[in-house]
């Protein structure tokens, strides 16, 4: 699953070769945010892939995808704190209490924390599958908040956030047949 680290490698490569443009800090911040969303969406593919297409091998990737998405989200946040704002706590605390675009981003990150923590087999056993599954539906809340974060950040052109919104909506829709089947059982 080293593929999932390619975006980071690419950032490192571009940073070394001047490929990040005139404002590299902004570029890295945005790229980490973008890849968080992409990998989060990928983590939602395995289940409907099995339900609808009967393909079950992606199931094995679900955990690593989810945990990696959290890793990117955390990196995106830590980059904001440690590089973009350089530990300027006054500005950071004001940002996180006053600016809706950052508040929803932060809320999205907070939603992902319990999911990353309970991603282990031990936690799955401790919670029991039902409760674990219920908890992990939080991922949709996280995705929705993240899309809102993206949309509010954009100044004029909402195309890219709308695209992500559509992808997440489709992924949710793709689960409906599975739910119906489960309810019938």
């Amino acid at each position: 699953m080293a593929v999932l680290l390619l975006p980071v490698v690419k950032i490192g490569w571009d940073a070394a070769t001047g490929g990040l443009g005139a404002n590299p800090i902004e570029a890295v911040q945005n790229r980490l945010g973008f890849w968080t969303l992409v990998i989060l969406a990928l983590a939602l593919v395995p289940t409907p892939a099995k339900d609808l297409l009967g393909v079950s091998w992606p199931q094995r990737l679900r955990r690593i995808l989810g945990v990696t998405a959290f890793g990117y989200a955390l990196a995106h946040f830590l980059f904001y704190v440690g590089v973009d704002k350089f530990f300027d706590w006054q500005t950071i605390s004001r940002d996180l209490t006053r600016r809706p675009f950052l508040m929803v981003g932060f809320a999205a990150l907070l939603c992902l924390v319990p999911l990353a923590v309970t991603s282990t087999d031990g936690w799955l056993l401790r919670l029991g599958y039902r409760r674990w599954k219920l908890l992990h539906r939080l991922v949709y809340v996280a995705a929705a908040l993240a899309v809102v974060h993206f949309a509010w950040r954009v100044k004029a052109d909402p195309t890219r956030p709308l695209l992500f919104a559509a992808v997440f909506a489709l992924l949710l829709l793709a689960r409906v047949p599975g739910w119906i089947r489960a309810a019938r059982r």
Partner: protein
Amino acid sequence: MARWKPDLRGSEATPEETWLRRRDFLRLGAAGAIGAAASALPLPAGAGEDDPSGEVLPVARKLEMAGGEKPTPWKSVTTYNNFYEFGTDKADPAKRASGLRVRPWTLAVEGEVKKARAIGIEEILKMAPLEERIYRFRCVEAWSMVVPWVGFPLSELLKRVEPTSRAKYVVFETLLDKAQMPGQASRILEWPYTEGLRIDEAMNPLTLLAVGLYGRVLPPQNGAPLRVITPWKYGFKGAKSIVRMRLVEEQPRTTWALMAPTEYGFYGNVNPAVDHPRWSQAKERRLGEFFRRDTLPFNGYAAEVAGLYAGLDPRKLY
């Protein structure tokens, strides 16, 4: 009203050689004596995107008005642009604007003036002696640069059309041409891009009608062939690729103020005390620097322009 003092910091003007010298140095390293000899000649266009390129403009005098700060490199100034007519990504204008036809180009000046007329770009270029002015440039998005513009005070042009007593504002309109400006195909903003200044702001000696950059003609992505620069205001106030100026009595509706009235005001004055709803304006990132630096009221030009706003609520001046 603040009086203009031409000798203010003009005597400290950074000579053109300062930024040319770096290139000479690089060439010396690369190609030895031949390179050194060649660098004495004007650089041909496209010699390398790191170096200033394009037709050289005759610059009559130089004013350094950025507190002695080093200009942001040419490459950054010409590849990091907000010019939504060519796309919303900052790299889009440099990639997509190169084909913009800037000759012939006509500027219509009309409205509350005694001598409304259409002026060709060649005439504009000869209207007044060209000056290099090194100004700070602060974007509303909290990044900034230092830019050696070439141009002359907008007042030089406005005087020639003789505004009437009813001329209270000047409206600037960017070219509307979907074929050349692919960004105008989507209705993310109301086209054509429209900006405006109060007449006293427009007549202020700091307000520049810019036709060049780094001693060369303005590249398309920076608003060729002519744009307005008001260094104490956020960058969006400076309309690019202008085809029309209208002098009017009422405060005009301007593009960003229409699009998001809670985020962008008519004045657009740089004001560290008034935050954008989505970020603080107290600090800015100067391109090329790691740490954010404090944003100055009126972007450091308070001495020249604060008098324009005497009696106005400073909280409204954003």
